[in-house]
């Protein structure tokens, strides 16, 4: 089977020849290819080069255009901080929608005009050209809560929930409309799977998640699936209290961080729901040994059951030893 066939088989409930392998790599991939992260995040050719290299080196079943959460916000004119060898990040003290009134006058960004969103679209196109036959090509968009936080400032958004619910809904609505178009551009460029990252959603707790976040995640995910590609929902952090809702989003793959035991996720979801993850990226993967990594993944697999894809809880950290990544790859290739 090719990597693409393997992932699709898993998603469609057919038996792959072995476990699919989909760890998130960004800085790790850049380092492996000798590419500074500033270049990785700003030039899709470097990103594609690094993704192709890391996938080939370890036999990943996919390549991804994920790089940092600031692409959309950058194009909208938000203050973004750049670092030489680290992902760019949004400067919250100068948030774009610092003043709520800004929202109503904000036109959604156009992913077809030159900018950081278009750079991702071009990254997807290049990856699809170079590897799309054999590997899944993953596009990436921000989820509603993460995108809202990027624009409003996370600290402020957290207070908005109680101060001004209708504003939060208007902001989430804007975020979803914009991400639908961003996803569409990536699908048209050849993405065969769409990642949705909604990191900030792990902070709000079950009440606010169910009331505000979940309905917008559902809408975004339904729209993307309507474009004919499956979705991978990734929420960093502790999602134990919202994991049930995550299972209701309709996302084909639920990608969990290490703080949520896969057994809990499995208990909260349909038996066929595909789970991805979720060893502790730093303590288990970077700082572990090939033996301990194999044991930790075996535990994940046992907890998740059959509908499982191998990965870490979040991004593979920079500095992860090659032999540790190899151990993860070996685990995937020798299990089913």
């Amino acid at each position: 089977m090719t990597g693409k066939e393997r992932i699709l088989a898993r998603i469609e409930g057919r038996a792959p020849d072995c476990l699919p392998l989909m760890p998130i790599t960004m800085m790790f991939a850049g380092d492996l290819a000798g590419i500074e992260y500033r270049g990785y995040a700003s030039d899709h050719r470097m990103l594609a080069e690094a993704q192709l290299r890391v996938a080939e080196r370890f036999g990943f079943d996919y390549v991804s255009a994920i790089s940092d959460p600031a692409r959309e916000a950058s194009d909208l004119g938000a203050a973004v901080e750049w670092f030489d060898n680290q992902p760019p990040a949004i400067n919250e003290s100068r948030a774009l929608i610092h003043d709520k009134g800004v929202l109503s006058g904000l036109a959604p960004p156009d992913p077809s005009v030159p900018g950081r969103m278009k750079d991702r679209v071009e990254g997807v196109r290049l990856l699809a050209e170079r590897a799309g036959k054999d590997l899944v090509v993953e596009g990436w968009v921000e989820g509603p809560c993460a995108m809202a936080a990027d624009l409003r400032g996370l600290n402020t958004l957290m207070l908005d929930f109680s101060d001004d619910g209708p504003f939060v809904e208007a902001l989430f609505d804007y975020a979803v409309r914009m991400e639908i178009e961003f996803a569409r551009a990536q699908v048209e460029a050849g993405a065969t799977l769409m990642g949705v990252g909604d990191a900030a959603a792990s902070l709000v707790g079950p009440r606010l998640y169910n009331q505000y976040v979940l309905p917008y995640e559902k809408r975004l995910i339904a729209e993307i699936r309507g474009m004919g590609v499956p979705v991978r929902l990734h929420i960093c952090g502790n999602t134990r209290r919202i994991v049930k809702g995550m299972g209701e989003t309709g996302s084909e793959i639920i990608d969990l961080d290490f703080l949520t035991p896969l057994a809990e996720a499995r208990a909260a979801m349909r038996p066929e729901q595909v789970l991805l993850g979720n060893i502790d990226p730093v303590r288990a993967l970077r700082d572990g040994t090939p033996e301990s990594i194999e044991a930790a993944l075996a535990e994940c697999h046992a907890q998740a059951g059959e509908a499982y894809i191998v990965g870490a809880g979040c991004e593979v950290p920079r500095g992860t030893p090659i032999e540790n990544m190899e151990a993860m790859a070996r685990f995937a290739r020798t299990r089913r």
Partner: protein
Amino acid sequence: MPELQKLYDAVLNGDQKTAVAVTQEALAAGVSPMELITNYMVPAMDKVGSLFECEEYFVPELLLSARAMKGSLELLRPLLAASGAEPAGRVVIGTVKGDLHDIGKNLVASMLEGAGFEVTDLGADVPAEKFIAAIEEKKANVVALSALLTVTMPAMRTTIEALKQAGVREKVKVMVGGAPVTQQFAEEIGADGYSDNASAAVGLARKLVA
């Protein structure tokens, strides 16, 4: 006599308006600022911290409570200063260079403030020079460093090194925290203390300045 328990409840429930109103009434009735802080605000923030630990409260509730407490503190601060009451300690806090995560740091800052420390918050992505300048300007005796990224943890070490270079390391106790930081790491880099949550950070700071 205003019902002071309402101040406790207002902070616990993140109700800034009520917190401010009760504080005003209490001050008008002659209640001392220290009593409000020690008997009502600190216990309320302690409770908030423990509700967070057991996943009853989440970040939004935490930030609401911190805001309520700050609203009340705004009124008390000038009175405390005028009475010549010494703060429990002078803390300079920030997230280290390269790191923009600030929620945990903000919570630690709020809890320390609530516990009677004078807190100078330098924000996120703070270079060592800024810490050094603030230590001297504010006559700080505690420096609190936060980092959420494994790639910015080394900046804690370099910040401590820079404090030494600048000759201010001996003047302050350094405490560190943030999700990836451990007690072991804190010891390795020569910090004076570590804690894994904001309530414990208060106890730690008290111990360090004692």
